């Protein structure tokens, strides 16, 4: 394999690796606009010029494959490369509006970062603002994206993403020379269901997320790594939040799962968390209750309705719960109720977990942890309809249900009806849920639990990859992570004293469940996929990738 020397440091890389990839592996920063690890190199921004021994002039690191014995000098060490990069940066700023104070990208803008960098910055400008080329501003590109063509550096990342990744090919340049301008096809709104990625891959403030625009300056944000709960793909994402409010979700790069992308539905899934009022306090028969009393009552009433009458307990868990929650749920049910029906699917979409919705990321199954539930021994069972029949026939003692409303899309009317009917028919019912929803109103005891963005845990995606998510924001009022609630229920009647801390629960799972064997929670939590642009350039040195 070829060995390449970059800035005096050697690295052995795969044949066919480009210089910039080798530098990224080494951790040597090479400035770039058009290069993106998940797009084909284009070599048009000329920002990654490096000096290579034996070449008469600087070459672009993104499109130059390494050969054995190559000696590369980046702008950090080579005056030739530094002069070239400074020249390019100066050119980029000739017609740039330099309106950082009102630009939403400020703080995470490559152009800004490079300008401030001592090795690339060109601290002068010879052009007055009135002499600049003016282009379209605030162009409406549909519900996701707003374009400011003046800020564009013509790197064509968006054009290539649109053409080669999603295939919608809705963006292109028009005109020539310094009048080149990015436009959408026939200046129409973007149809792309992955349009939100344009704002992520745009290295400057040209393509901005309409959702995040003007919301918060990025240096105010806190970052938490998490996993998308929108479908069974399990895209790696970062929750950007401020003051306990989620401001946006952006993808983290994971070449094995989602590369650098995230679908728009997943990106906006955090908005679903505000779709209905949250359950803030435990409720018992429609009255607010205290946790200490309500857990005891729940356990007692469930047992009275089942063990006392010799009837089984129907235990329904959601495939949106974490592995840890599902594990504790199962342990509680198995320990406390000798006769039980343990199920997890609300509708009977048994085979949907692996089915694709499109060719990129989205899948039909809108639960993040269906595979985990299967691995943990949950079955599809008789389903809601079957349980309702059992209840109607008086063959069901009580119902214990853990329910998270879907973050992408909505539960079908049919499923809602079935849930409503089951809750009505059940003599006794305990519901652990996050939101007050009309079809959940029939529950006798309501226990508020933390939603997806509020709890830590692991999810198993459609391929069986176990991934770790952090809790980003706090739960409202008295809501608690479901794992803790289940732990309390177990302690109630001394079915055991289970660990509820996710790391310890996971250790237990890894010990007992074959699919999890050999996995270590700490490794999962630290194996956080990297984000792009390269980390370490977070505003104010914030490191969003260590989690919270």
């Amino acid at each position, binding site marked *: 394999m070829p060995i390449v020397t970059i800035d005096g440091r050697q690295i052995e890389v795969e044949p066919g690796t480009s210089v910039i990839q080798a530098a990224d592996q080494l951790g040597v920063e090479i400035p770039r606009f058009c290069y993106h690890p998940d797009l084909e190199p284009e070599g048009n921004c000329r920002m990654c010029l490096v000096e290579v021994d034996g070449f008469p002039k600087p070459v672009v690191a993104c499109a130059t494959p390494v050969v054995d014995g190559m000696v590369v000098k980046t702008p950090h060490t080579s005056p030739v490369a530094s002069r070239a990069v400074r020249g390019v940066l100066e050119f980029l700023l000739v017609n740039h509006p330099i309106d950082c104070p009102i630009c939403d990208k400020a703080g995470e803008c490559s152009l800004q970062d490079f300008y401030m960098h001592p090795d690339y910055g060109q601290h002068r400008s010879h*052009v007055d603002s009135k002499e600049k080329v003016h282009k379209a501003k605030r162009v409406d590109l549909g519900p996701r994206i707003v374009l400011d063509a003046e800020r564009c550096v013509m790197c064509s990342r968006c054009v290539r993403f649109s053409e080669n990744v999603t295939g919608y090919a809705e963006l292109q340049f028009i005109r020539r020379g310094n009048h080149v301008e990015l436009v959408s096809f026939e200046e129409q709104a973007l149809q792309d269901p992955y349009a939100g990625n344009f704002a992520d891959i745009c290295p400057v403030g040209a393509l901005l997320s309409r959702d995040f625009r003007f919301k918060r300056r990025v240096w105010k944000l806190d970052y938490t790594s998490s996993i998308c709960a929108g479908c069974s793909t399990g895209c790696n994402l970062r929750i950007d939040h401020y003051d306990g409010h989620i401001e946006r979700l952006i993808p983290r790069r994971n070449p094995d799962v989602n590369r650098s992308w995230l679908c728009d539905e997943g990106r906006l899934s955090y908005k679903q968390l505000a779709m209905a009022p949250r359950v803030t306090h435990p409720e018992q028969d429609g009255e607010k209750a205290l946790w200490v009393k309500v857990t005891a009552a729940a356990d007692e009433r469930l047992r009275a309705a089942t063990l006392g009458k010799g009837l089984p307990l129907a235990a329904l868990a959601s495939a949106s719960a974490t592995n840890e929650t599902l594990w504790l749920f199962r342990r509680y049910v198995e320990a406390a109720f000798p006769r039980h029906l343990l199920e997890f699917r609300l509708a009977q979409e048994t085979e949907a977990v692996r089915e694709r919705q499109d060719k990129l990321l989205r899948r039909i199954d809108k639960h993040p942890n269906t595979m985990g539930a299967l691995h943990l021994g949950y079955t599809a069972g008789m389903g809601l309809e079957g349980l309702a029949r059992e209840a109607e026939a008086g063959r069901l003692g009580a119902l214990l249900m853990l329910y998270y409303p879907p973050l992408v899309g909505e539960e079908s009317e049919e499923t809602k009806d079935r849930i409503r009917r089951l809750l009505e028919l059940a003599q006794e019912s305990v519901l652990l849920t996050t939101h007050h929803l009309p079809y959940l109103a029939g529950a006798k005891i309501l226990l508020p639990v933390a939603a997806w963005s509020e709890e830590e845990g692991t999810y198993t995606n459609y391929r069986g990859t176990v991934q770790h998510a952090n809790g980003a924001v706090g739960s409202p009022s008295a809501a608690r992570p479901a794992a803790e609630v289940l732990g309390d229920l177990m302690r109630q009647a001394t079915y055991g004293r289970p660990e509820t801390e996710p790391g310890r629960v996971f250790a237990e799972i890894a010990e007992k469940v074959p699919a999890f064997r050999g996995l270590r929670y700490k490794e999962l939590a630290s194996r956080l996929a990297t984000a792009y642009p390269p980390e370490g350039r977070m505003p104010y040195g914030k490191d969003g990738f260590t989690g919270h």
Partner: protein
Amino acid sequence: MADFLTRHTKDPAQKKLDTARGRGAYEGFRRALAMSRQEVVAEIDASGLRGRGGAGFPTGRKWSFIHAKEGQSVYLLCNADESEPGTFKDHHLMTFDPHLVLEGVAVGAYAIGAHRAYIYLRGEYASIAETLAAALREATAAGIIGQSCLGSGYDLSVGLQLGAGAYICGEETGLIQSLEGKRAYPRVRPPFPAVHGFLREPTVVNNVETLACAARIMAEGAEAFARLGTRQSAGTKLISVSGAVERPGVYEVEMGYPLMQFLSHEAGGISGGRRLKAIIPGGTSVPVLTAEEAAPLTIDYESMLSAGTMLGSGGMIVFGDGTSMPHALLRIAEFYAHESCGECTPCREGTGWMAWVLRRLLAGEGSPGDLGLLLRVGDNIEGRTICGLGDASVQPVRSFIRKFRQEFEALAPLPVAFPAWQLHGHGPRTGRFGPPVEEAAQSQPVEGPPDYVL
């Protein structure tokens, strides 16, 4: 005056296949078909033919780079996007002897093993498209091009594609992109077109004149071509001369022909009885020559190179006494600013910037240091772009300013080296970039920072 290529171009009937064949058209192709591909390439190599589009790369070597793998198709593209300012030689050839061009395409395609060839014609040459299409129809009907060319068993189909009038489509990879139906953004090399060209297949792109030469070489033998011209620049060259001459037009001269003799005899001397001031020998993308520099030169690659310029495409632009060089340069700079495709940063922003500074200078709003700025911008473009357009745009700017410095300095004084008062922050208020105008005018330009040395 040589007539290797233009022997029959004066006769309008040459466009007709019968007339042309009567004069030996397609005999070269017939001869090539009788030989193996390698022999054709060797023959062209032996003739010493160099690319006539501007770069002067040996054609035989270019063809020998093609190594098609199993299942790959090879393409020959004829670059008829003649858009270099001052160049109209291919126009002449295609208008008056289309069959010679077609024969050249056929020879080239055979030599590299291509079964498909395209002629990429400049958008403004719509009238030629008809001529070429008619010639192509005739040749196809006569069985010269098509299935089993001239009964040899070699298949060739030739397509004709009209561009939309962009300079960048004359650039090899830009042309390929345009032909693929994409925006004519040049591609980063490597990979070169010989490996990844049209439709990602091995491709050769040749100039019209080059292919015409190849056809004639096959007809007359490499010897006949190599005999003409100088040792390193074999054959003849079409020169399209324009500007301040009495008889502008296309002339074919043998390589090594004295430049001054060409101007006074063929071109009829400088118009209006004026004196020669400057000459751009090979299209605007090559450095300009002053009259003194041009005097001893001959028309061939090495002689031009020795004077620091290039023969280029042979688009000669002549400036007579009294021409304002800054105005001429502005025109050229505006051309490049207008034609920069906008793909890579230095060219996109730099060409526009240079044109804008020149416009400012000529409007009388220049500042001292603008000339230095022009040169510095040029340095930042050169060698940092994807294709040659960036470098091409710098050549005229740099050579005009260096060689006609007084004219430019009359517009804006050059920056002097930093006077002490400027370092210490005392002294009179300055303009934006330098000392007050009066002071700069009095001071002698000294050896400034390295970038600004003229």
